[in-house]
């Protein structure tokens, strides 16, 4: 019997401890699974930070392989640029309900150290890592890098969040930041690589909605050498963050002002309110970064080693709720998904459109975190 699916949106959840205290994967698993209804079993995933403390100095590459034979090719590419410190199959568990709809690929993880002589002139170490990710995704058929940051990793695939969570044994991991997603693909295929989160270096994003400006955004970031290979709109989000945050070194609020830009009438209002500086900045950002503006209905969570930032499109066409309890910050599509893991948070609120919720680690200030490791 085919289970009847009802139309819904995607669902997202994030939990972050601002003291870098480890949280069991069980909580994010329960939170996202309570919103199972928002997905249709065609994609779910998790991103976790702080899961490889003993390998924290190496880049952790999670690679999805259509076939085990492709591993040697990936190994060869990695070997050219990195010293491979450790490589292993990511342990997975038998989840019979998954195999009814899909044949899971093989997941490998590599802990690597960049070879200094592989870095091109004018290139930073991170630039080189990005280049290798793009090379594998683009040139090695049947291999996709699903995460490439330090002390973090993405786990994703075709299935419901509980199925994917069981498959990767998410409850066994402990991290100080967790993101999760359940997917309801509408206009791009539901395949293992297309599930959220999308990551690059230590950026990870999960997204509910649709980026209608995908064409513009894609052309824009391709000018900077990024390659969109994962057949879905959300991917551009991760690359845009990398470009604006890491390469262009914009402050956090400026990045979000570029992506969920205020309307011109609201920018003019800043002038009426005599907020001259804000007015000038908003005007410049909208002008310079017009192709980086994300249009369409969306709610997004964006994580990196120093925190999580959640934000909505500028007229709030997707749900987004945040809560704080002590040092822990929760963000989700539905309040119930927060309450299911934290019954009585100190504060629960629905953020306004385009207004980012910034949950940074207590040990860092907003100005310091524009640049990743």
């Amino acid at each position, binding site marked *: 019997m085919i289970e009847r699916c009802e139309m819904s949106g995607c669902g997202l959840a994030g939990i972050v401890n601002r003291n870098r205290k480890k949280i069991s994967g069980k909580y994010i698993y329960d939170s996202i699974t*309570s*919103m199972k*209804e928002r997905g249709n079993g065609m994609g779910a995933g998790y991103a976790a930070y702080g899961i490889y403390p003993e390998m924290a100095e190496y880049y952790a590459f999670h690679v999805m392989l259509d076939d085990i034979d492709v591993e040697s090719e990936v190994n060869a590419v990695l070997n050219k640029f990195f010293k491979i410190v450790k490589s292993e199959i990511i342990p997975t568990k038998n989840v019979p309900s998954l195999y009814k709809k899909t044949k899971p690929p093989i997941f490998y993880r590599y802990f690597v150290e960049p070879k200094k002589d592989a870095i091109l002139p004018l290139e930073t170490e991170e630039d080189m890592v990005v280049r290798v990710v793009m090379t594998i995704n683009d040139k090695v058929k049947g291999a996709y890098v699903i995460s490439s940051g330090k002390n973090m990793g993405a786990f994703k695939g075709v299935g419901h969040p509980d199925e994917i969570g069981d498959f990767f044994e998410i409850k066994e991991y402990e991290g100080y930041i967790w993101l999760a997603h359940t997917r309801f693909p509408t206009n791009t295929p539901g395949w293992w690589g297309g599930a959220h989160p999308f990551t690059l270096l230590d950026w990870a994003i999960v997204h509910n909605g649709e980026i209608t400006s995908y064409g513009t955004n894609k052309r824009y970031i391709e000018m900077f050498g990024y390659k969109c290979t994962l057949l879905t709109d959300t991917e551009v989000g991760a690359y845009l963050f990398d470009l604006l945050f890491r390469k262009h070194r914009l402050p956090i609020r400026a990045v979000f002002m570029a992506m969920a830009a205020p309307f011109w009438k609201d920018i003019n*209002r800043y002038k009426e309110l005599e907020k001259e500086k804000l007015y000038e900045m908003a005007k410049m950002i909208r002008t310079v970064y017009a192709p980086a503006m994300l249009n369409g209905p969306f709610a997004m969570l964006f994580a990196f080693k120093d925190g999580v930032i959640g934000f909505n499109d500028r*007229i*709030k066409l997707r*749900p987004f*709720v945040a809560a704080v309890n002590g040092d822990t910050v929760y963000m989700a599509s*539905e*309040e*119930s*998904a927060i*309450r*299911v893991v934290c019954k009585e948070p100190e504060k*629960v609120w*629905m953020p*306004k*459109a385009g207004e980012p919720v910034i949950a940074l680690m207590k040990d860092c200030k907003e100005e310091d975190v524009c640049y990743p490791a």
Partner: protein
Amino acid sequence: MEVRQVSEGIYEVICGTAHYKEVNKKIKELVKKGAQKIILKEVYGQRYIGTGIRGNVKIDIHGIAGNDLGIFLYGPEIEVLGNAQDGVGNTMMAGKIIVRGHAGDVCGYGMRGGKIYIEGDVGYRVGIHMKGYKDLIPTFIVGGKAGNFFGEYMAGGRLILLGLDKKPGEDIVGDYCATGMHGGVMYVRGEVPQRYLGKEVKVFEVNEEDMKILREELKGFSEAFNISVDEILSEPFVKIVPVSARPYGRMYAHRWGIASGVIK
């Protein structure tokens, strides 16, 4: 999910994370059995609670009511002892919904009858497309503040915004308030900046007739949350009504209709 009978006609259901289909099926079963009151405990976002049943049953919800609470509601009274999510009272026809907390986006969408009282704030797009017909006048009262697109495309009924928790300097309502409104009436306790209002509406001072309506409508809200009507009425209200009953009439009407004078 656990069900137990508290007393004659009163049942308690522990919902936990049970699927909404099971919870709603159980509610229907209990109503069929003659339940007058159903207490739902530990509710975690189960959707569509209260739909598909008629009559005078009362449903208490402890926890977080899920999306589309009381969608197509036809008679029952629902009380949420906690917060509600998006779409409270979607296309509701008759009955009453009380939320002792805040509620999310698109509440009261297409509402055509009954009463909704929210104690706290509401999200975006609340009261959009509300409508009324002859004796059917839906009432939606918000105790706190509202987000953007409040009462957008409103076609009937009464939308009342109180802003009781509003701090100085805060806006009681967001941008695009009453955009495209062409029926019904909106009462706001406080001022709405002109730049937030749609071009299709005008703001008036409330007259005696309005005060009578307000007094009458606020009675239920006052009883539900134990705030006196006089206290609510101690601050001035404004009335927002559309300037035209059919602002887009000429835009979409067939030329024949205009030429023959059927459409003015």
